[in-house]
């Protein structure tokens, strides 16, 4: 059996899901925004990447064909082979644009979030997820409808060794993961993180202390959605083909399972929770190859995951690693204290001497 290849594909899968669960932890664990539409922002990122890369390439080379054409897909493949560094450039472009577009949609989603109660917000975002998929499926000109978008380039198309290619891609994902982890950790342990927790625990109290709750909620959803958009773009460049049926609401459920299993408002816990869920996923996939079971093993996996999450919700709702007290000591409040994300970025780049 090919252990190295298996490990690479497992870690790639893990890395992509880690982005989703970390961003959900930021939104729900720290800020208390129940994002039941995680799959939307993931899907928006993926489809932004898919649509942009194929269309830009076709436009640059003056081919007046829809990317849905089979002929166009063959041409795309030739173009990528002839211009080795074009896919890499496109990859960088699509990651950035996926983050921006998903962030914009996150901002839009935060608008109802300001007005609605938790349960109504859950219903709205959940239905938003279903509708996104149905829209992509039905509106053919945008993303080829039910056929999905193909011909998304692998960024390291110029490397022939497929093992090296996958390993390099994995290293990019790992880099982004580490960056996002540090970002979430810093965000959580900053005054901004404390504001988030204050809003989560008691919105009125936070408001009475002069925190602009609406802005902060919007910002958190923008950051979280941008991260999940990046995850979507990474996924689409990894598989090189995305169809609307990859973005079913079960993805949202998986992300929630990872967060609750590991521990809400604990980034390290989420890393472990994601690892456990990813291991369960791959282990069942392996099991189906090793053991001959007449039944479809995927179904059993979902039943198992559902029972696991229910047990955790009932007996250990704080997760494997419960939330810990903040690490940050109190900071001196400067004059002209900025509100929201600016404050965070100040903390992020501040020199260490001020602690």
């Amino acid at each position, binding site marked *: 059996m090919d252990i190295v290849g298996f490990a690479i594909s497992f870690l790639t899968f893990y890395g992509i899901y880690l982005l989703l669960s970390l961003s959900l932890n930021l939104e729900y664990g720290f800020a208390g925004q129940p994002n039941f539409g995680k799959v939307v922002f993931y899907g928006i990122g993926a489809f932004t990447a898919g649509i942009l890369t194929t269309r830009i390439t076709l436009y640059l080379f003056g081919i007046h064909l829809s990317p849905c054409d089979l002929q166009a897909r063959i041409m795309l493949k030739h173009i990528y082979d002839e211009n080795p560094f074009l896919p890499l450039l496109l990859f960088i472009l699509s990651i950035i644009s996926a983050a921006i577009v998903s962030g914009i949609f996150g901002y839009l989603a935060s608008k109802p979030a300001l007005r609605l109660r938790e349960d109504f917000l*859950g219903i709205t975002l959940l239905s938003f997820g279903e509708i996104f998929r149905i829209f992509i499926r039905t509106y053919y000109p945008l993303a080829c409808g039910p056929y999905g978008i193909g011909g998304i380039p692998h960024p390291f198309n110029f490397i022939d060794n497929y093992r090296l290619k996958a390993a390099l891609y994995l290293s990019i994902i790992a880099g982004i993961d580490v960056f996002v982890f540090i970002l979430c950790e810093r965000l959580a342990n900053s005054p901004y993180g404390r504001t988030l927790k204050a809003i989560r625990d008691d919105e009125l109290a936070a408001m009475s202390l002069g925190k602009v709750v609406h802005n902060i909620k919007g910002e958190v959803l923008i950051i979280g959605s941008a991260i999940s958009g990046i995850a979507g773009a990474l996924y689409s460049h990894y598989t090189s083909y995305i169809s609307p049926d990859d973005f079913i609401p079960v993805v949202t459920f998986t992300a929630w399972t990872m967060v*609750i299993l590991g521990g809400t408002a604990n980034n390290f816990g989420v890393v472990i929770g994601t690892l456990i869920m990813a291991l369960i996923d791959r282990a069942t996939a392996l099991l189906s190859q090793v053991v001959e079971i007449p039944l479809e093993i995927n179904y059993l996996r979902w039943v198992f995951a559902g029972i696991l999450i229910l047990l955790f*919700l009932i007996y250990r709702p704080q997760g494997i690693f419960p939330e810990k007290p903040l690490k940050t000591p109190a900071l001196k409040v400067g004059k002209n204290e900025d509100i929201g994300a600016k404050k965070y970025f100040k903390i992020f780049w501040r020199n260490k001497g001020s602690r």
Partner: protein
Amino acid sequence: MDMDIIIPLLNSILTGSLYSLMALGLTLTYSIIRFPNFAHGEFITIGAYIAVLFSIIIPLSSILNLHPILTSIIILIISAIITGICAVVTHLIIYRPLINRGSKLVYLMIASLAVSIIIRYLIYIFVDIGRTFYKLYLFNILPKMYFGETIKIAGFSLTPLFQVSVFATILLVFLLQLLLTKTKLGKAMRAVANNSQLAAISGIDISRITMLAWFISGSLTGLAGVLWANYVWATPTVGQKALLSIFAASIIGGLTSFSGTVIGGYILGFSENLLLSFLNQWFNVSLSYKPMVSFMIVVIVLITSPKGIAGINLRKIILKIRKR
């Protein structure tokens, strides 16, 4: 032109009735336990597959040797009861422990998502078992049930399914209304829905009332699910697909008003069939946008009047108009 309207019109009434029945169950559980049960759609699937079980796998018609209509009614009742029991069981093993431990609303919502996924995939496994061991193809299947003959009234040909659905809806809504307004049990249920602490103080056994509410909710939805499976055929995702429309219908009623829910069900039925076929004819809108209708309704209602129809104060609006 006339022919193009009649079929969507009849379909609107049919789907509207079934949506009302399903959404009534959702409204009932929401008003008693105060959380949106995302697993509600799976009760439809359970009802549908119980009908499949008793009409195809273990055909009751050949065992009991009764009149086919009577057999169909027995299947309807059996699946209503079994689905009701399933609903009570989910409440007892999952939601009640969670509520007793003081779980957050979000945790209850995730738990209901988990329940819906467990039930859906268990039904997938059931279908899979049928395929691998008994060579039965239970995916996308029509339960073999007989409800009588098509009647023609003034050019409208009413299918037996249409007759049964509309009749069952009227009967059940009437019975539910009687239960809620005339009996002590129903009054207790309404009291719990209004203010559970006050109800507990005045001596109402809340856990019994809650269980009863779950049973009624499950059985209404299961019964509607059997009829729904006769309309759109049974698949493991049949409940999940209908869930959004049910939520939309219930949200029109503000998730707590029963009459509002029935109206919402019919609004949903009419806008998904009649309105969409109009749009299709005049504006060339694709019929596959059908699921979007319910989402639009959810968003519009939640943004304009989150309390639904019950939140609209007619007197205020009339006063405003008069002032102008």
